[in-house]
């Protein structure tokens, strides 16, 4: 509860100590639907950005280190620039949204730590953790499987590295966020 109830305004019944210390903050120290909305948009743009970044890096890998087996056509070699242009469009559109929302949400959580308890934020973070974990573990399993089958190639390893670095970056960032959020429960 508030340390100093006489000075808090009556329309802020649930205010944490941090928010009362900073009453001049531009945002009201409460969580609204708008925060949940921003989180949903940020995570959607993050998914689009991460997927298209991984796929376009795959086409770079295919370009510079082609798959060894001949006759094994990857999608990128079949459709040429068409798919690459699709990924480019996805990145060009989703990245500004992601960067803007990411910075805005980080700024808002600094000024108003109540956002950390937002249900939508928690569910989205945990959903993201599960998905990135599944992607990482699936890729590692397929890598071990190819290794056991003896057909591991540089092309394969590079694609694995692309997937792992993107999904693990997201995974560990949100693990750190979860740890940080726990302090405010």
């Amino acid at each position, binding site marked *: 509860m508030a340390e100093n109830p006489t000075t808090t305004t009556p329309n802020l019944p649930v205010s944490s100590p941090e928010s009362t210390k900073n009453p001049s903050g531009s945002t009201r120290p409460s969580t609204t639907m708008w925060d949940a909305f921003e989180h949903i948009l940020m995570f959607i743009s993050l998914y689009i950005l991460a997927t298209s*970044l991984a796929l376009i890096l795959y086409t770079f890998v295919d370009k510079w280190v082609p798959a060894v087996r001949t006759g094994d056509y990857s999608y990128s070699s079949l459709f040429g620039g068409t798919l690459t*242009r699709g990924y480019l469009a996805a990145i060009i559109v989703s990245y500004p949204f992601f960067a803007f929302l990411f910075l805005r949400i980080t700024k808002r959580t600094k000024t108003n730590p109540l956002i950390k308890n937002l249900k939508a934020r928690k569910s989205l973070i945990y959903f993201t953790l599960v998905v990135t974990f599944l992607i990482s573990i699936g890729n590692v399993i397929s890598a071990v499987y190819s290794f056991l089958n003896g057909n591991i190639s540089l092309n394969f390893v590079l694609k694995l590295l692309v997937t792992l670095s993107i999904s693990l970056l997201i995974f560990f960032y949100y693990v750190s966020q979860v740890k940080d959020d726990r302090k405010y429960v």
Partner: protein
Amino acid sequence: MYKYYIFVGVLTVFVISVVVFGFVIAGTPFSTRNTGFDNQRVSDFNNLRYSIEAYYQDNRKLPESLGSLTNEYSNAIYNDPQSGKPYEYKILTNTSYSLCTTFSLDSEDLEKGTPSYYPKQENKHKKGYDCITYKISSPVLNSPTSTKLPSPTTAPANLPGTTVTASFDRKESVDGGQYLYATLQSGDTASYYIPNVEIENIIIINKNGVKIFLDQFESGDQIIIKYNLRAGDSRMYVNFLQNTSR
């Protein structure tokens, strides 16, 4: 907070470099437009080529101008997609000719963008005004002089799925449809020339219903040709040619 700005800054630099590399691989929007024009030109050249070969097939000479390829041989009037001018046509010898226009790119540069559906080797061209020389293909040159086909305005003789008996040295004309069936006769080999039509599959089935190869067939076997008519075309010819080496 500043470390988040640094992170987003680094990410921005990374994303921009990825986008730049992506444009290097996929072609910039401007070069993609030029690629589209050149693919259209090569596609038009190939359509004209089919029409010219069909004309040669019937008349045993090259058309004097592209205007001679009336509706019977060419359903569309092909113009350059960028300038809108008709393509230039030059007769070189009795059996070779060239088609000219102003290309947007070298044919080597085309590979960077959308892949062309036409063989690059025989459609090589330079950027700017250039000509591609074509020869009448040997199946057409070697085909015996044939009588002119009935005009395609007549009612379709063979509907899809109809079985026609094809004797060699004879043309079968089909309007519309998807399959051509023909029963092969004694002493024949299948050398076929089919202008204006995209062949999907050619199957020869012997009397026992077993699939066999083109050079193994006997009298009475059936040849089934699955084909797609291209947009704007309305007919196809199948020539069965006698193999003189036998």
